[in-house]
């Protein structure tokens, strides 16, 4: 071991300390900077033609060029995503609670859920169009369905994972039926279903765009389809990045909500 030499703290050590202190946060950006730089370099040197990979500036210019239409595209998609996600998740939680709680209901409905679970929602798009038409409703139903599956499964499992200790404690303190539901069941499953809610939200963006590919007059998917049709790769990428940015935004909002509702959860590493 080399003895510590505190007598020789110079500028070098100060800079080194600063770098070590911030390197965690710097490293977070390193990967992104490399990818973005690579994209910038490949597209601007002309090594990859703009047809395959337009430059970042070109994508930005394209966004500005069509910026008047953007609020409409964003609103159309986000409406479907938010409404479909909210309805599907709420129904999933509401149905998962009794199925997870009651042995009889579990026996009856769990096989149904297990049968539906492996169905890829995207495979059902044609069927939904056949049943509900090409308009908004079939898209909403598709997104709701996808979110419902994720949350019904997640809720059933969360209810089953509740420590019976808490139910017994509540009962011995005089809590009955709905009181137990409200004061034990609901709070106890929140940490478990928060993960499911975020997965459902992220999946909603994908299901929405897939549904839009089947025909739409506006939305993220519309930009992508039109970009392909007119060989405007920059427009296509505008659609892709809008989805990415809004998905990150929604995830960030859900994370904030989550940390509020789960501030009581003991940390695992302690």
């Amino acid at each position, binding site marked *: 071991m080399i003895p510590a030499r505190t007598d020789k703290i110079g500028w070098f050590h100060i800079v080194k300390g600063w770098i070590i202190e911030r390197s965690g946060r710097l490293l977070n950006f390193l990967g992104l900077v490399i990818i973005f730089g690579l994209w910038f370099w490949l597209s601007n040197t002309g090594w990859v033609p703009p047809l395959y990979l337009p430059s970042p500036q070109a994508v930005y210019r394209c966004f500005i060029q069509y910026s008047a239409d953007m609020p409409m595209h964003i609103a159309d998609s986000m409406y479907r995503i938010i409404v479909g996600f909210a309805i599907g998740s709420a129904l999933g939680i509401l149905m998962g609670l009794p199925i997870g709680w009651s042995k009889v209901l579990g026996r009856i409905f769990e096989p149904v859920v297990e049968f539906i679970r492996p169905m890829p929602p995207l495979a059902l798009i044609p069927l939904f169009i056949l049943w509900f038409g090409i308009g908004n409703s079939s898209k909403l139903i598709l997104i709701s369905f996808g979110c419902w599956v994720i949350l019904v499964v997640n809720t059933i499992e969360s209810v089953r994972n509740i420590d019976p200790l808490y139910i017994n*404690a509540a*009962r*011995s303190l005089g809590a009955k039926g709905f009181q137990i539901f409200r004061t034990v069941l609901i709070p106890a499953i929140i940490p478990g279903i928060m993960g499911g809610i975020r997965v459902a939200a992220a999946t909603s963006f994908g299901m929405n765009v897939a549904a839009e590919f089947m025909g739409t007059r506006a939305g993220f998917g519309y930009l992508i389809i039109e970009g392909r049709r007119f060989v405007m790769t920059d427009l296509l990428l505008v659609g892709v990045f809008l989805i990415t940015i809004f998905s990150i935004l929604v995830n960030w909002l859900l994370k904030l909500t989550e940390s509020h509702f789960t501030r*009581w*959860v*003991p940390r695992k590493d302690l």
Partner: protein
Amino acid sequence: MGNTGGQEVLLTVENLTKEFLTTHGIIEAIKDVNLRIYKSELACVIGPSGCGKSTILSMIGGISKPTSGKILLEGKRLTGPSPDIGIVFQKYAAFPWMTVEQNVEYGPRMRGLSKSERRAITEKYVGLVNLKGYEHLYPKELSGGMSKRVDIARAYANNPRILLMDEPFGALDDLTKKKMQEELLKIWSLENKTIFFVTHDLEEAAFLADRVIIMGRNPNTIIKDVPVEFGRPRQAELRTKPEFVAFKKYLSEVMGNDTGENG
């Protein structure tokens, strides 16, 4: 002090038997247990691990159903969980999603008491278990001893007729455990509430109890009922007195006759 006045029976257990059906056949968790708990007393049940202490406690608490026999509270048959029977579990059982204060006021809230009534009750019992100033913390922010205080305050705040405690201090370190025992005695003497206390710790039983009920294995049933004569209030000094040490030795001999293992 302590077990004052007449020997008025509060709780009666008659011919209680519990069998579990397992893949290896039927396990008799307890067999023909007969027991009386008197008003205001602090009765301890001791016995080696697996002799059926928790089984008895959870049936009195209404959490599990007896195979045969019955449990009467002041002559009335008990058939399920009841706010008349408070439980302090072996595990930490404070609701992790509620603050200390919300945990303590849980029973009164379920009974529909008003906010001001609840406030008064909570303040009293949070004070009684020395948790003043910690009302707004979540259980994850508390030490083991503090969590146990929450459990005790919550059970007391619901004002049950009897309190069941299943090795409540079993998970605590020795020093904390002894401190909690002394505090429990203080609370018990102030509140005058009947306590049915289960433990496998001889010293704990000898220090706390008016009466030690000793259980044995095979069959899992009560083998002896020993009164504890030490006066009250009991202080920490009692633990080192020769008569206390002798009593512990006596208990361990009674238990030792039945089984070698303990714990």
